[in-house]
C-alpha cells in the first residue's frame, strides 16, 4: 500500500513537472549569440484517408522554412531560425481544436493550416482567441473568413469564387445537372455554390445527393441519378471518393460528364480511377503549376526532395513565405506586431500575386479547369471570377 502511494505521488510529481514544461512559452528562446528559434505551426491530416494530401501541405511548409532558414534571416537585429511544428488534425473538427491549443501551448507564433475547411473553421476560433495569425493553404469554405476573425487568412480562392465558375461551366456543358457532395464543410459548401450558379446560368438541377468522406460504394445514388438523365454530374469532395464515382458511373453505363472541384484534381484520382478517369473535368484555384510564375522552379525543388506534388503544397509553401514576409516587414516575430502587416501583404509567390481583402480572402483568384486526357490532367482554360 505504501509503495503504491509512493509510486502515485512520484507519478503526480512527474506529471506536474511535464505540464509545467508544457506551459513554458518557447516563443523567443534565445540561444547563444542572441539567435532566436521561432516555431511556426502546421496542421493537416497526417493519418487517415487524406494523409497523402496532408503530408503534401506539410512538405510545402517545410520546403519554404528550410529555404528561409538557409537564407539566414535577421529579424529585429537577431538571427532567427524557424522551426516547423507539425500536428495531425485527422481532418477532424474536434481533433483540430485540440491540436490548435497544443501548438499554442508550445509557443507557436503563427500557423499554416488546416487543410480541410471542416477542421480549419473550428480551429480558427482557437487561434483568434489567442491572437495567433493563421493562413490556410487550402480551406475554401466561405465561412472561414466570414466569422470576423482578424487572424484568419487564406492563400486559396474560396468556394464562392470557385463554385460560381464551376456552376456556370456546368450549365455550359449541359442543361441538366446532378450534384453529389460528401457532407463535409468543403464538399457541401462548394456543391451549394455550384447549385446556385448553375441555376443562375439557366441549367436545371435534377438531383442533389449526399454521401460521406469514407464511402466507396456510390452505385445506389448514381443509379438514382442515372434515372434522371443528367448531362453533368458534379461532385463536391476529395479524390478517394471521386475515383470510385468515376469508375461506378462507367460500370452503370452513364455517359454524363463528371465535373469536380480542387479536391478531385489530383494525380491520385487518375491513379485510382485509371481508365475511368478519362474525360473527367475538375477545377483548381490558381494557375496550373507550369503556368505559375515560379512553378517550374518550385516543381523541381519540391520533387527533388519529396517526390510528386499532390495538390496544395505550392500554396502551403507560399503561405509560409507570406507569414515570414510579414514578420520581416514588422521587424518582429510577435504575433501582435506582425499581424497588421499580414493584412497588408503584397507578395509575389509561386502561385501568383498574393494580397488580402479586409476579410483575409485573396483579392484576385484565378481558377483553372483541367480535363483528364490520355491519363494526364491537361489544362482546359483559366477563368477569372467576376
Amino acid at each position, binding site marked *: 500500500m505504501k509503495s503504491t502511494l509512493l509510486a502515485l505521488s512520484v507519478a503526480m510529481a512527474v506529471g506536474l513537472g511535464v505540464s509545467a514544461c508544457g506551459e513554458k512559452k518557447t516563443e523567443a528562446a534565445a540561444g547563444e549569440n542572441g539567435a532566436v528559434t521561432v516555431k511556426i505551426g502546421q496542421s493537416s491530416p*497526417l*493519418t*487517415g*484517408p487524406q*494523409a*497523402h494530401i496532408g*503530408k503534401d501541405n506539410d512538405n510545402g511548409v517545410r520546403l519554404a522554412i528550410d529555404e528561409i532558414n538557409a537564407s539566414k534571416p535577421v529579424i529585429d537585429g537577431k538571427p532567427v531560425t524557424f522551426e516547423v511544428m507539425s500536428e495531425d488534425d485527422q481532418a477532424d473538427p474536434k481533433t483540430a481544436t485540440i491540436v490548435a491549443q497544443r501548438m499554442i501551448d508550445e509557443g507557436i507564433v503563427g500557423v499554416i493550416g488546416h487543410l480541410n475547411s471542416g477542421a480549419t473553421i473550428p480551429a480558427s476560433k482557437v487561434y483568434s482567441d489567442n491572437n495567433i495569425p493563421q493562413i490556410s493553404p487550402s480551406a475554401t469554405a466561405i465561412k472561414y473568413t466570414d466569422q470576423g476573425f482578424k487572424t484568419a487568412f487564406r492563400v486559396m480562392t474560396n468556394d464562392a469564387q470557385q463554385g460560381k465558375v464551376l456552376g456556370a461551366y456546368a450549365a455550359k456543358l449541359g442543361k441538366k445537372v446532378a450534384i453529389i457532395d460528401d*457532407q463535409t464543410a468543403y464538399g457541401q459548401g462548394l456543391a451549394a455554390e455550384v447549385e446556385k450558379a448553375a441555376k443562375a446560368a439557366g441549367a436545371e438541377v435534377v*438531383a*442533389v*445527393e*449526399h*454521401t*460521406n468522406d*469514407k464511402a*466507396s*460504394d456510390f*452505385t*445506389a*445514388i448514381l*443509379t*438514382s441519378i*442515372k*434515372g434522371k438523365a443528367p448531362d453533368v454530374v458534379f461532385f463536391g469532395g476529395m*479524390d*478517394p471518393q471521386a*475515383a*470510385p464515382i468515376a*469508375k461506378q458511373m462507367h*460500370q*452503370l*453505363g452513364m455517359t454524363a460528364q463528371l465535373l469536380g472541384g480542387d479536391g478531385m484534381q489530383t494525380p*491520385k484520382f487518375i*491513379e*485510382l*480511377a*485509371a*481508365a*475511368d478517369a478519362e474525360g473527367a473535368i475538375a477545377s483548381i484555384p490558381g494557375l496550373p503549376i507550369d503556368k505559375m510564375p515560379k512553378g517550374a522552379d518550385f516543381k523541381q525543388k519540391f520533387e527533388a526532395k519529396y517526390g510528386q506534388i499532390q495538390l496544395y503544397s505550392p500554396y502551403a509553401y507560399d503561405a509560409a513565405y507570406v507569414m515570414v514576409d510579414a514578420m520581416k516587414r514588422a521587424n518582429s516575430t510577435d504575433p501582435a506586431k506582425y499581424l497588421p502587416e499580414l493584412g497588408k501583404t503584397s507578395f509575389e509567390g509561386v502561385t501568383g500575386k498574393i494580397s488580402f481583402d479586409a476579410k483575409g480572402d485573396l483579392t484576385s483568384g484565378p481558377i483553372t479547369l483541367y480535363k483528364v486526357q490520355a491519363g494526364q490532367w491537361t489544362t482546359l482554360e483559366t477563368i477569372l471570377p467576376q
Partner: protein
Amino acid sequence: MDIFAQQLVNGLVLGSVYALVALGYTLVYGILELINFAHGETTMMGSMIALAVIGALFGVAPDLPGILIVLAGLLVAIPACMLLGYSIERVAYRPLRHAPRLAPLITAIGMSIVLQNVAMLIWGKQYIAFPTTLLPQGRHDVFGASITDVQIAILVLTVTIMAGLVTLVNRTRLGRAMRATAQAPAVAQLMGVNVNRVISATFVIGAALAAIAGVMVSANYGQAHYYMGFLLGLKAFSAAVLGGIGNLAGAMLGGLLLGVIEALGAGYIGDLTGGFLGSNYQDIFAFLVLILVLTLKPSGLLGSRSVERA
C-alpha cells in the same frame, strides 16, 4: 423498372461482400461467443497483401494474363490471412478463453487497431490503386440493369463459397467437431474433439473468407486503403447480427439484405419523402432496420439458438 433492377443488382453485389465478411464473424461467434472485431482488418490485410503481390508480379511479368496475376495475388493472400487469423486467435484470444467476456472483446478491438497501424506502416497512408486493367472489363445488360464481369464473378464466387461452407459445417468431420464444440466445448473435449484445434480451424476458415472478400472489394472499387476494413467490418457485423449471429444462413441472408436495403434506401429515400430525407441517410436506413429487427426478434432473423451457457 430498370432503375429498380439496377438498385437490386447494386445491393446484391454490395450485400455479397457483406455476407462473406459476416460469415467470418458468425463462425467465430457460433463457437466461441466472441466478436472478433479484428475480422474487418483481416479483410483489409487480405486486400493489401493481394495488391502487393499483384503489383510486384505486374512489374516483373506484365505479359502474364491479368487473371493469372490476380489469382496469384489471391493465392498468396489467402494463406497469409489464414496465418494471420491463426496468430490472432493464439495471441489475443486463447490466453483469455476463460477470462471475463469483456477481456477478449477489448483485445479484439486492440488487435484491430494494431493491424490498422501495421498496415499503415507497411503500405503507407495513401489509397492504393488496384490495376483494374488486369481483369475483364465487360459490361452486360440484365433486365435493364448493368452488371460488370467483376460483379458477376463476385456473385458467383460468393454463392459457391457459401455452399461450400455449409457443406463443410454440415457434412464433414471437421464440421461436426465445430458443431459439437459450439454446443458444449467441455463435452466435445470429453468425446475426443481437440477443441483448440477446432477453434483455430474456425479462425483460419474465417480469415480465408475475409481474404477473398478483401480482394473482391478492391477489385470492384479499384482501390484499397489501410482503413477500409473498419466500416466494412462494422457493416458485416451488423449483417451478421441482423441475420442472427452464430447462424451461417443468417449471415448470408443478413449480408444480402443489408446490401439491398442500403441500395434501395439510398436510391429511393429522396423520392419517397419528397426530398425531405436525402441519400445522406443511407447508413441510417440500414441500421434502422437492424434496430427494428433486434427489437422485435432479438436473436436476429434466423437466430433461434438460445445462448445459455454457464
